[in-house]
């Protein structure tokens, strides 16, 4: 079979080039990358390397001729059966934008054919069409690829065969679910609306761990409790921005971000300030379970006034969560793991976790956010947890 030698694009604005000299005689052999001809465009003269090893079977543009970029200058026979030369005049042929695809001017290739050509780097001029008016069909391309595979296995140097055999996995388009669209819309909207800033606090979870392991609890109910204490001390964190003013919410309703199969839900623990740790733990487990099994009622994902995202589950240390509008802040809980810390000039091993608070700087200043976080940290480290079961 033969492959084309094409007048290359030598510079973005260059439209044509002149063949100065063929460096290989007709039917002469050339190795891949060995110079095969010299061309000149404007003031640049270059040697063009052969695209493959083979014999220069045809010279279509004579020395001294000037042709458009993309014009086939000659053909290189690289083994296998010679392909039939297509009837169209050779000068009509030019390269198109599609990577690795040769497309003839005025000829239409179907979307499926174009996709295959791009995917496997097929030069469509190597293919004889069997469709209406000689159109190349998808079946033609597939049959061609099948043949190439055979050639490739027989000739290790067959470049096209190698490419065809690569079997690049196709890109896959995942349709947008309405949940995905909603998440996307809300996330971008939140980023656009709120002036996000994030502050990080390191917390010693030793007191929590003691209570937690006794009662077989996760960290989350403790964090919810501490957040409630923080919100009580700094109610401005439990608010929404409105054009009329900052709306401080009466109730403390804590949203808990739950990863579900195809997205994210934030079910809400209404009046989280009313419950002890054991009840909070049950509520969190129940909401998370029903979030994952799509059994949440609509009002259970509404009315949140502050949210918590527990990103530490897989080991994430800190994060910059996006605020769940119209709330004003969201707390990220990082992984708690044992670290060496300096206490009273001695090195101790303590379970340390980092809390990340993203807050809306329109409403809350850094100092307020840090005071709130200090309160949360203080509560987590020093609360007498047994009194709050």
């Amino acid at each position: 079979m033969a492959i084309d030698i094409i007048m290359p694009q030598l510079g973005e604005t260059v439209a044509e080039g002149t063949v100065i000299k063929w460096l290989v005689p007709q039917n002469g052999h050339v190795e891949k990358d060995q110079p095969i001809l010299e061309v000149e465009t404007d003031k640049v003269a270059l040697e063009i390397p052969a695209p493959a090893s083979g014999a220069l079977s045809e010279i279509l543009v004579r020395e001294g001729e000037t042709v458009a970029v993309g014009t086939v200058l000659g053909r290189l026979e690289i083994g296998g059966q010679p392909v039939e030369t297509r009837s169209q005049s050779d000068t009509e042929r030019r390269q198109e934008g599609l990577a690795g695809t040769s497309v003839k001017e005025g000829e239409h290739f179907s979307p499926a054919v174009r996709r295959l050509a791009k995917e496997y780097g097929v030069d469509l001029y190597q293919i004889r069409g069997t469709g209406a008016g000689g159109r190349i069909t998808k079946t033609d391309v597939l049959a061609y690829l099948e043949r190439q595979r055979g050639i490739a296995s027989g000739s290790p140097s067959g470049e096209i065969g190698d490419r065809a055999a690569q079997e690049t996995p196709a890109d896959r388009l995942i349709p947008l679910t309405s949940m995905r669209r909603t998440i996307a819309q809300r996330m971008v909207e939140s980023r656009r609306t709120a002036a996000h800033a994030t502050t990080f606090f390191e917390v010693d979870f030793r007191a929590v761990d003691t209570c937690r392991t006794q009662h077989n609890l996760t960290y989350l109910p403790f964090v919810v409790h501490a957040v409630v204490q923080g919100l009580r001390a700094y109610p401005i964190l439990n608010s929404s921005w409105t054009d009329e003013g900052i709306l401080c919410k009466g109730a403390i309703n804590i949203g808990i971000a739950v990863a579900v199969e195809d997205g994210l839900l934030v079910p809400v623990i209404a009046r989280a300030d009313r419950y002890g740790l054991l009840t909070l733990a049950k509520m969190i487990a129940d909401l998370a379970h029903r979030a994952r099994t799509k059994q949440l009622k609509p009002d259970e994902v509404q009315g949140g006034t502050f949210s918590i995202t527990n990103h530490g589950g897989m080991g994430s240390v800190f994060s910059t969560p996006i605020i769940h509008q119209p709330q004003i802040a969201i707390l990220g809980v990082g992984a708690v793991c044992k670290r060496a810390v300096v206490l009273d000039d001695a090195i101790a091993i303590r379970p340390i976790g980092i809390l990340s608070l993203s807050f809306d700087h329109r409403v809350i200043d850094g100092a307020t956010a840090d005071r709130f976080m200090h309160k949360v940290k203080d509560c987590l480290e020093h609360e007498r947890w047994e009194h709050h079961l």
Partner: protein
Amino acid sequence: MNTPIIERDQQGVGAVENGSGAKASLHGTKEDRMKIAKADYLQMYYYLRLTRALEDRVTVLYRQGRIAGGAYTSHGMEAISVGYAYALHADDVIAPYHRDMGAYLVRGITPGEVLAQYLGKRTGPTKGKDGNVHLGDLRRGIIAFVSHLADNLPVAAGAALAFKLRGETRVVVTNTGDGGTSRGDFHEALNFASVRKLPVVFFCNNNQYAYSTPLHLQMAIRDVAERAKAYAMPSEIVDGNDVGAVYLAAQRAIERARRGEGPTFIECKTMRMHGHSEHDSAKYVPRALLEEWKKKDPILKAERILREWGYATDSDFQAVQQRVIKEIDTALEFAERSPLPEGPEALDGVYADSEREGLA
């Protein structure tokens, strides 16, 4: 028999024989006093006031440009929807139209919900999906209004059919305007309900104008009630500005329906005192006619009767007025504080899920 207070020469309409052969009752009588307890009358007066105060506030909000869409009031016609809704039992059902704010309130829709609905808030009964008076709630027995007038008449008949099929003694009341009675659905519904003796009461608020079209260009008959004759349906004509009269007529028809004797048609004569909607200055209505009807305002009329019957004094009226203004202030605060829905919520609820969402 009492002299009709709606004079033929003034209105071009007046009392007629009703379908059952009795003279139409056109205002509160001494016999009525025996039939309406003081507490009930005072409660209906409160709803008249509440409706008026709420819709007056809506008018103000509309003129301030705070309502996204249109605004429709029942100003001067409050007695009709208050009267019929007050005559129903809790598990009865209404299918009101756009001049029935009183009925929504009697059935337990709060002024806060109404204002939230007008402001397009998520806390309105339709969560912002629909506006102004298009609200419904099956738990409170309210089928939401459809703008295509008379569309809900066959629906009301169907709800009544469900009650009849199940042997329940529940009743449906529906209402439409004089214009609505020109639509085919009005006639299909009355005919079907009458043939099958369904427990439904058809009210007609004859306020003499359908948008700008006066009654004589709407129909060639003098009284809308004449339409009922074609369906062998008993009918009554009542003074739509007399809440006691409407209440008693509704009660008669509702009890008749409850007994399994079939539907009744009740024409309430009244006057539309505002435009079709608040953007409409209604210049096509003669001013003299409006001046005349202003004197027959349903609230003034109720106060006169309450005073005559010794049920209430002016200080009671003032107390009610103060109470409703306060309620409306609180309601507006609630509505304004409520969140707007977010854009993508527009996608929710096109289809019902597998959970049962209708009335059991």
